[in-house]
């Protein structure tokens, strides 16, 4: 692994000022967390050509073929309580939708809380990993994976039904580099908005892009499974689900499936 700092093209804002482009890595989130441990600056971005062990939550695999998609992790050192850290995922999701809609014209939406969707197919995902000591956040790593130029053959049979790419949706190749530049600009903007002015405008934007709110959903959290109507998200980003009993239940964990 030979990190090469890349200052051109993407300069201007704090986020992405330090850009480390790598070949094949296990996972950009793992590399970024190691760099953060060693004191990497706020806003440092790690980008890889391919990932050997691209991952989602709890060790789930993120398919990461070489040279066609975006695998990127952003190191942040925000002044936030650990409890407010999920708002970083919300900010990254809103930033991704803005960048993708502007650059590709696709109608990208957010499935609560961290999936980027086109219709019922997953175009990208965000995996935020933070490290806390006591009640302070040491650093956060925002991992962003976006399927840009993946062909159908790049997805293993098991996920072909669920996954998509910008290429598959628009029948057109897009430059990862231009998309990354736009992603970093948007992430910088929404991060600053959150830190300087709070979550209000961010949550409003999130609601506008949400494909989950207003739908019937099934929530599987631990041993508990229930269904209801996803009505809104609250100030902390929790999904508010109206149960058949009429009660409104805040959901902060588990897998949410949109029912047909």
């Amino acid at each position, binding site marked *: 692994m030979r990190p090469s700092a890349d200052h051109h093209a993407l300069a201007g804002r704090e986020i992405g000022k330090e850009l480390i482009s790598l070949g094949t890595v296990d996972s950009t989130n793992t590399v970024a967390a190691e760099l953060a441990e060693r004191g990497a600056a706020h806003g440092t971005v790690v980008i890889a050509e391919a990932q050997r062990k691209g991952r989602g939550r709890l060790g789930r695999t993120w398919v990461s073929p070489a040279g066609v998609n975006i695998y990127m992790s952003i190191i942040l050192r925000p002044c936030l309580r650990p409890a407010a850290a*999920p708002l970083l995922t919300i900010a990254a999701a809103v930033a991704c939708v803005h960048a993708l809609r502007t650059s590709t014209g696709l109608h990208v939406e957010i499935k609560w*809380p961290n999936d980027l969707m086109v219709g019922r197919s997953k175009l990208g995902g965000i995996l935020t990993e933070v*490290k806390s000591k006591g009640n302070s956040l040491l650093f956060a790593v925002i991992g962003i994976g976006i399927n840009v130029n993946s062909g159908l053959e790049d997805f293993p049979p098991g996920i072909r039904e669920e996954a998509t790419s910008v290429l598959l949706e628009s029948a057109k190749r897009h430059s990862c580099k231009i998309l990354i530049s736009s992603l970093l600009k948007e992430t910088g903007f929404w991060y600053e908005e959150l830190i300087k002015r709070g979550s209000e405008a961010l949550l409003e934007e999130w609601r506008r892009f949400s494909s989950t709110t207003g739908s019937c959903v099934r929530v599987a959290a631990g041993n508990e499974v229930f269904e209801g109507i996803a009505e809104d998200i609250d100030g902390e980003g929790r999904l508010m689900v109206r149960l058949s009993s009429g009660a409104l239940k805040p959901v902060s964990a*588990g897998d949410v499936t949109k029912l047909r």
Partner: protein
Amino acid sequence: MEIDDLKELISLLQDTDIAELQLEKDGTKVKIRRQTLLSPLEMRRKAALTVEKTQASEEDAQRFVTVTSPIVGTFYRASSPDAPPYVDVGARVKKGQVICIIEAMKLMNEIESEIEGAVVRVLVENGQPVEYGEPLFILEPAS
């Protein structure tokens, strides 16, 4: 009906699933209703848990350090279902070592130890929901 009979009746019910009992004898009506809907087994488990927690907080006040959850979320002892736990009871931990993950809204929050020492007790089961400030581990500081 004597008071001793009542006592005996109540103690007889304690290890059963009966939630309510009505008895009429010689013009005296007795109705016993138990407060809980938990089964006897669950009740015992709960009682044991309470005792353990009380002991834990007493010990904590003396020489142990309690690690609490900084957020509401789901507690995980390992990075993935197939991975070994970060720490087990008896394990030595270094300052800054990751000891568990709390997940909230798909955000994985690695919790690190603030002290060097040993794990005395793991207070929460893997995959269980935890509240803000809920005790997760008891650590014994290295002397």
